């Protein structure tokens, strides 16, 4: 091969190799840049989700503290004052025979009972002392006594002691679901099941009108039950739990919540 040809071949090879190298560099840069950006976006989303979770937790804790304060004030201040008024009124009622005083005493009794009930609803005192199962049982008994709806409670498996904050969240979920059933479903019967295994499975079933759960999820249903279910979903997500819904034959609904017992 002539020297000029050899020079040309060398220059051609080098130039082609450089072009090839440039092309591959660009292709690899695009692939790795995309991967890096996507992983950064994912990290940012995880941080945002973590932050939102913390904000929700803080909001709920603050709510519980406020409820606890209100419950204490109601019980200790208002409740105590009403009891004192009742005691003061008792001799007067006993001495006299006037119906208005009897009526007043009756109203006072009802007020005292209402204050106690509100205080109990705000802060279930049994939860801290006796645990979740006791508090739920006690709630069911109270509702049964009120005659608004028949509540059946059952528990299977061995209860696992959970962190107190988690127990409060679970209690509030059950409370909110029961309140929703009483207010919106027109049900006559409510079943609450707690199944303890690797997870705590809550099954809350009623024989009411049913519920457009998917509509709520897609924001197309009416907002009557909206806020209550939203707070349930918030607490479920804080627990790291899952919420499922099924309609029951012939009529009614069933909510299933699977809650990890460890934090």
């Amino acid at each position: 091969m002539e020297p000029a040809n050899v020079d040309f071949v060398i220059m051609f090879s080098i130039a082609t190799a450089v072009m090839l190298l440039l092309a591959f560099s660009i292709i690899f840069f695009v692939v790795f840049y995309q991967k890096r950006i996507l992983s950064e976006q994912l990290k940012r989303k995880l941080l945002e989700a973590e932050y939102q979770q913390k904000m929700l937790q803080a909001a709920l804790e603050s709510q519980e503290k406020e409820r606890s304060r209100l419950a204490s004030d109601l019980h200790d201040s208002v409740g105590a004052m009403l009891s004192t008024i009742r005691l003061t009124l008792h001799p007067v009622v006993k001495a006299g025979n006037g119906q208005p005083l009897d009526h007043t005493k009756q109203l006072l009794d009802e007020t005292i009972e209402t204050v106690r009930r509100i205080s109990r609803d705000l802060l279930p005192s049994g939860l801290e002392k006796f645990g979740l199962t006791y508090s739920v049982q006690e709630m069911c008994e109270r509702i049964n006594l009120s005659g608004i709806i028949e509540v059946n409670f059952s528990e299977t498996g061995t209860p696992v002691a959970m962190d107190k904050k988690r127990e409060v969240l679970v209690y509030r979920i059950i409370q909110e679901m029961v309140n929703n059933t009483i207010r919106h479903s027109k049900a006559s019967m409510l079943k609450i099941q707690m199944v303890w295994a690797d997870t705590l499975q809550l099954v809350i079933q009623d024989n009411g009108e049913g519920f457009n759960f998917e509509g709520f999820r897609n924001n197309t249903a009416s907002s009557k039950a909206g806020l209550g279910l939203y707070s349930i979903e918030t607490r479920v997500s804080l627990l790291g739990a899952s919420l499922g819904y099924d309609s029951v034959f012939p009529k009614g609904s069933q909510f299933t919540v699977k809650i990890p017992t460890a934090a």
Partner: protein
Amino acid sequence: MNALDFLNLSSYLQWLGSFLIIVFAIKYYPNRQTEFIVVGLYGLVSFLFQLLQELNGYKYVRLPHGSVGNLYVLFEAGILLFLFYKTISASRLKQVVVILSLLFLLYYLSIIIDQFNEMSSSIRAGRDVVLMLCSLIYFFYLLRELPSKNLINDPMFWINSAVLFFFSCTFILSLTANYILEALKEDFYLYWSFRNFLRLLFCILICIGMWQTRKESRNLETSGQV
């Protein structure tokens, strides 16, 4: 095996590559109709031009040899530029592709008037530059849009990479084709064989890109949409 045999072998292989593009485009076009129809058309045009070259070589058709190649350059550039125009959805970048296409057309017409029957390095180099630029524009568009899926599974990523790879590797050859033909006549077959093997690789990369959509068609079948 002498240089001419090598050239013939490489020529038939890159012809096979064009045929493979047609087959893959027919098989996978339901997944990406517009893009794969254009790619299939490119394969078909390449296949037919190669056939015309062969018939011309065997004297079944008597056309000036350079004219077939020069016409092919226009068709190849036109179809690939249309593919870029169709796949880029950003209007500004679409306008850039249109401007580049028009510039190339003007450049082509200005050169070809005097050189239609002879192989032209200028228009080949021009085509390579325009297609490399469009490929870079498409990568820029990808980085801006940043699809969430893995780029390796995107057919257009493969097709675009094939365009950048092939036309950058053959750019120096396109630029010096006339010089090689005149000054290094006996070596021209080897250089052109090198180009043909690169073209075969180009076709294979395009087919790999179209093959990536097999997962999409499987997902569509399992979800009952097909």
